[in-house]
């Protein structure tokens, strides 16, 4: 019924805007829903984000986002292109520090520890909160070295045999082992796009992060490789926490327990995946998941 009132409000607002006849004004609509985003908190949160605002120079990319990510939970983030999913994800392990013009305000905590604390060392943070980037970015080194680099710098292995083992198991879990096992000394940059994506996933899980942020990990994968990655996500969930950005509703529905819908830098709605997909309480969410927008 919220939806109905909102639409009514919308209609009232429409008259004051310069929007063209019959067009749906998403900006107004998203403003209308502030504060009614659903259950942002969970019982046992791993990470909590409160009043997070992100600016790229003048551009306000994320506005007042509040969201918890629970232990042993897979949360998927969906929304139209450019709505700030990647930006939000990158805040969680401070990858936005690398962008000069990017400024983050608000509070993000990992196990109650403020991530943006000045005294916090980002090295262990990123070892704990690993990330798979939207664009595959293998090192221009061998496949083996791509995977081995993380465990080596963190001192996770003590000898070559252990390292070999980590490399093999990481590649296996990412569904890449059978394709590359004979070419481990070939450059990782020589792989196909989808293979590179899986290589980057393998590289991330090789350091056993407790929280894994995945930015469209399956965007270049065929259904079989996608199934393999989804299997991996399911398996990882038993011990870890995963936040995944995806453009595939089916994937979000398959792998995640909770889903968050972003729109133009705002968190519009968050809730149990089943609820979101079967019974979205917001017009924007409904339009997006039913394919009318985005």
């Amino acid at each position: 019924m919220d939806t109905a009132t909102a639409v009514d409000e919308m209609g009232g607002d429409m008259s004051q805007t310069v929007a063209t006849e019959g067009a749906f004004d998403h900006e107004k609509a998203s403003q209308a829903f502030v504060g009614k985003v659903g259950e942002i908190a969970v019982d046992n949160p791993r990470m909590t984000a409160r009043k997070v605002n992100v600016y790229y120079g003048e551009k306000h990319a994320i506005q007042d986002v509040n969201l918890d990510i629970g232990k042993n939970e897979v949360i998927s983030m969906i929304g139209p292109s450019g709505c700030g999913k990647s930006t939000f994800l990158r805040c969680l392990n401070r990858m936005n520090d690398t962008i000069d013009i990017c400024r983050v305000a608000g509070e993000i905590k990992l196990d109650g520890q403020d991530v943006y604390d000045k005294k916090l060392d980002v090295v262990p943070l990123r070892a704990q909160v690993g990330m798979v980037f939207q664009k595959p970015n293998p090192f221009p080194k061998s496949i083996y070295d791509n995977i081995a680099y993380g465990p080596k710098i963190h001192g996770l292995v003590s000898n070559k045999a252990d390292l070999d083992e980590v490399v093999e198991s990481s590649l296996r879990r990412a569904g890449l082992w059978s394709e590359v096992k004979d070419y481990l000394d070939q450059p990782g940059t020589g792989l196909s796009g989808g293979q590179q994506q899986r290589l980057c996933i393998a590289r991330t899980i090789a350091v056993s992060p407790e929280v894994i942020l995945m930015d469209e990990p399956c965007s270049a994968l065929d259904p079989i490789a996608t199934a393999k990655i989804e299997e991996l996500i399911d398996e990882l969930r038993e011990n870890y926490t995963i936040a995944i950005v995806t453009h595939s509703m089916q994937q979000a529905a398959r792998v995640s327990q909770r889903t968050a819908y972003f729109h133009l830098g705002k968190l519009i709605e968050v809730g149990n995946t089943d609820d979101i997909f079967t019974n979205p309480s917001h017009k924007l969410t409904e339009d997006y998941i039913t394919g009318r927008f985005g």
Partner: protein
Amino acid sequence: MSNQNQTEKRAIDLVNASLKKRYAKERRFRHVGQAAVIMGLLFVSFLFISIIGNGYTAFEHTFVRLNIEFSEQEIDPEGKRDPQALSTANYAGLVKAAMRAEFPDVKARKDKRALYKLISSGASLALREMVLANPEIIGTKKEVWLVADDDIDMLIKGHIDRNVPESDRRVSDKVIGWVEQFESKGAVEKQFNTTFFTNGDSREPELAGIGGAVMGSLYMLLVTLALSFPIGVAAAVYLEEFAPQNRWTDLIEVNINNLAAVPSIVFGLLGLAMFINFFGLPRSAPLVGGLVLTLMTLPTIIIASRAALKSVPPSIREAALGIGASKMQMVFNHVLPLAMPGMLTGTIIGMAQALGESAPLLMIGMVAFIVDIPGGPFDPATVLPVQVYLWADSPERAFVERTSAAIMVLLGFLFIMNFLAIILRRRFERRW
């Protein structure tokens, strides 16, 4: 197509109509480019042809065969074969004696002096060397090829015209007669000029070589490389990767760019004031030259290195940081190896610049007349471009070809260095 109705035209017809114009434009542009390249090539080949045409003869020198009697009386009257005595013996006397024997009818004092001048004063050194290496030859008679004087060399090479009147010529008719006598016996020959590569500078063109200048250049470049590469790379890495972006770093950046454009002679003055007058380092030393050229090449290397670091894609940095590498690890394990070829290219280009530099070195006394080949960066030395400058200033005809030959050697080194830079770039280009 033009008589067709506008509204009925399909897009492809419009495309086809525009094609002709586009191709014409493209052709025109190609022609302009080709013309520019041809012009450039013409100038360069003109330069090369004139240098090589002037200089290639310097790689050969005229030698005269003489029957030298290594008389014991002259070399070692005491017969003890004492090396000290052997090295101070009058070898010039041997040459003179041989010449007298060759031309017994030359009696006048003046003529005799002219006769002795056919052979270079360096010939006695060659004889001494022979005797010291093998004292056995004392008391024997032997045919030896000796270095001819530079005027004779020029005569043989045809740079002195035998047909002009005697008064207009550096070589008298009498001398020409003697030379022709040698020629008729087959006792004159052009041989490869090793002296040119092994000797230092000399007042006598036939004894002058680039050995000293090459060694001087080498020591100087070693000093420059040893200082400017690590300092340049470290500065570039710090400025690009670690330094905060603020007014100070902006100021530093502006200053570095300015320094790259400062005339090199200013660095020479600075070197003179600072290294020689203030720190008291020796004049004319490759060390000081290297320090001055370090100042000069640093901006080039820093700018090239920063550009190389900038060109490493940010995704590689993110990848490293994303799995928890520290900034240091990111830079040294991933960014630096990728930027290294660019840095090396910049360094080699900087070194090539340094190798070809002469103006600042004039300021710190590397323009002195130095005969000895330097044995280290502290010995007085000169360098190739300065040697070219010195010889270009000398009046003797024989120095003209030596100047061009020295330029050819310098260009050879520059060519090798730039070629190396290109290979490096090719080899490591686009590894991501």
